């Protein structure tokens, strides 16, 4: 806010939406691999408001996790590199922030939960120490105070005998319990934003729902905005306010969850929806999946990347990549044929 040049922009931004906490503009992240340059995230823009639940959906390899890691500043460099864009968080462009500043933000104002509960916790450190770590770093709690708070957090996330669990090691717990620990850890400093990257995918179906409910409940309680990254649209339908649909490194559709569900603006979204059982469709149709495979990110097809798999593909799609355009109130989509295709569904 204090820098001279940015004052105007900031003022405009804050006037526009006082409650926007994260604004990603034109983010591009690339990976150098032996097979070539992978544009994992290509010119992605979106924003998250306070207390909002945003879902980012897409198949694996679409760039949703890389987007999250870019926001957290956790892209492994090399081989990865953020080559352009801005990530505005708390009035600061995180891409310009120093390592020290990022360390303060990570875990303090922004937390993340990962997919693999079995490997995401340090196997040789007690649960108590791991949960206490961010409390000691960001809140400056003493060892004893951090331990007490860690116990409270473990009970908050619904672990039985939380005080005994403090001295346990990760291998003594089930996957669901570990993911609860991850939630306790990520939420310990009551961050403004929490990113859950496929946080429930690796869990049993029954446990998935419990952990998700817990995540939503704790986020509400702490006033934390959530980014849920998933390939499961069922989750999105129940919990998300907004949805970003990603494909091959780009956002292809974005809107409120209700809009996107009722009236998808992109054939890819429609395809994803039809592969979700018993949510959109009643009982008649059998479960459909999208034909074809995810394109090779080092060698994307010309034009629309979804073209080769799209049932509505036209000549134009093969030549020009469609831009994101309004297809409704607060609802954008990148498809040349969206009008025609929406007419047919």
């Amino acid at each position, binding site marked *: 806010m204090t820098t001279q040049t940015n004052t105007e922009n900031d003022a405009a931004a804050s006037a526009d939406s006082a409650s926007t906490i994260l604004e990603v503009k034109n983010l591009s992240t690339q*990976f150098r691999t032996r097979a070539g340059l992978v544009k*994992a995230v290509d010119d992605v823009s979106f924003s998250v408001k306070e207390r909002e639940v945003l879902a980012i959906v897409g198949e694996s390899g679409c760039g949703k996790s890389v987007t999250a890691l870019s926001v957290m500043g956790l892209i492994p460099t090399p*081989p990865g590199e953020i080559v352009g864009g801005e990530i505005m968080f708390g009035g600061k462009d995180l891409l310009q922030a120093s390592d020290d500043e990022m360390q303060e933000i990570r875990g303090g104002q922004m937390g993340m939960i990962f997919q693999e509960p079995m490997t995401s916790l340090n196997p040789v450190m007690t649960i108590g120490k791991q949960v206490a770590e961010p409390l000691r770093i960001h809140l400056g709690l003493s060892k004893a105070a951090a331990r007490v708070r860690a116990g409270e957090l473990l009970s908050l996330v619904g672990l039985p005998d939380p005080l005994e669990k403090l001295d346990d090691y990760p291998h003594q717990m089930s996957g669901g319990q570990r993911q609860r620990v991850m939630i306790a850890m990520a939420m310990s400093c009551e961050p403004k934003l929490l990113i859950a990257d496929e946080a429930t995918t690796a869990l049993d179906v029954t446990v998935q729902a419990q952990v998700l409910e817990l995540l939503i409940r704790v986020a509400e309680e702490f006033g934390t905005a959530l980014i849920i990254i998933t390939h499961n649209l069922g989750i999105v339908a129940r919990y998300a306010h907004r949805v970003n649909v990603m494909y091959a490194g780009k956002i292809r559709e974005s809107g409120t969850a209700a809009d996107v569900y009722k009236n998808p603006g992109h054939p890819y979204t429609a395809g994803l929806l039809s592969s979700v059982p018993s949510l959109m469709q009643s009982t008649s149709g059998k479960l459909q999946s999208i034909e074809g495979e995810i394109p090779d990110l080092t060698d994307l097809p010309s034009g629309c990347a979804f073209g080769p798999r799209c049932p509505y593909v036209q000549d134009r799609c093969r030549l020009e990549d469609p831009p994101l355009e309004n297809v409704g109130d607060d609802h954008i989509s990148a498809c040349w044929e969206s009008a025609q295709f929406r007419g047919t569904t």
Partner: protein
Amino acid sequence: MVKTSDSVEPSSVDTARIQLPYWLAGLLRHRLSVIGGSFILFVAFLAVFAPLLTGFEPTEVDPPNRFLRPSFEHLLGTDYLGRDQFTRLIYGARISMVVGIFSVVIASFIGVPLGLTAAHFGGWTDSAIMRFIDAKLSIPGLILAMMLLLMLGGGVLTVSIALGINLSSAQARLIRSQALSVKEREYFHAARAMGTSNWRLILLHMMPNSIQPVIVQASLGVGFAILGEASLSFLGLGVTPPTPTWGNMLSLAFQYMRSAPYLLFAPGVAILLLVMSFSFVGDGLRDVLDPRLKGKI
């Protein structure tokens, strides 16, 4: 996302495992292996054609010309008896190469059957074999080799046996752990369910599927054996004077280091480079045959 980088490598490796030409092609792409392999071939050439490459005999004594510094006539100089060092070096290569290779062959012939037997029969057989191997491993290698040499007498073959026994425990352990995982595979269960005999199970199903690491370990083992032989002949054991070996050349050079320090270099460098070459080839083989072994061997 990070997976993109992973998914690039294995495909080329998988094909290498199926066809032999690719196997060699893979090794040829491994730069250090090519350097190591070339040096090994070079030393082998020197060893085989030694009589044609020098005008001297390795044991030819020429007292008037003792302690000559390296010159055009004596490329590496002469020792305290006036023997030509270059001649002795290339004849010494014969011992190192032969002992190095014999040792790992012997090690494999001892280690592979032990490891397979232990893995296949399990239970008491396994425990007994493994305890024997532990016992062997608990005796420092060089002391064990020295004891074996005293029992068996000196010579190229006995040195190879002594060093082979030393190396066999690693082979046995390695193939045992591989074979234990083969034992859990479906095709092995299927073969067993059809009533295949123990011998056929071991020889046709277990061995071919667990032998790869043994090949890698063997190529790395050659280097250890060469080092072991050099240490033994440095101590005056095993292959004994006047037969030249790199180890006993260094032992003599040690005694005369003040009058002829130049004798210290060539044999030592030769051992170092040859051992390094075998380890390069071993590393290359491991990367080509089974990259998952990285860190295990």
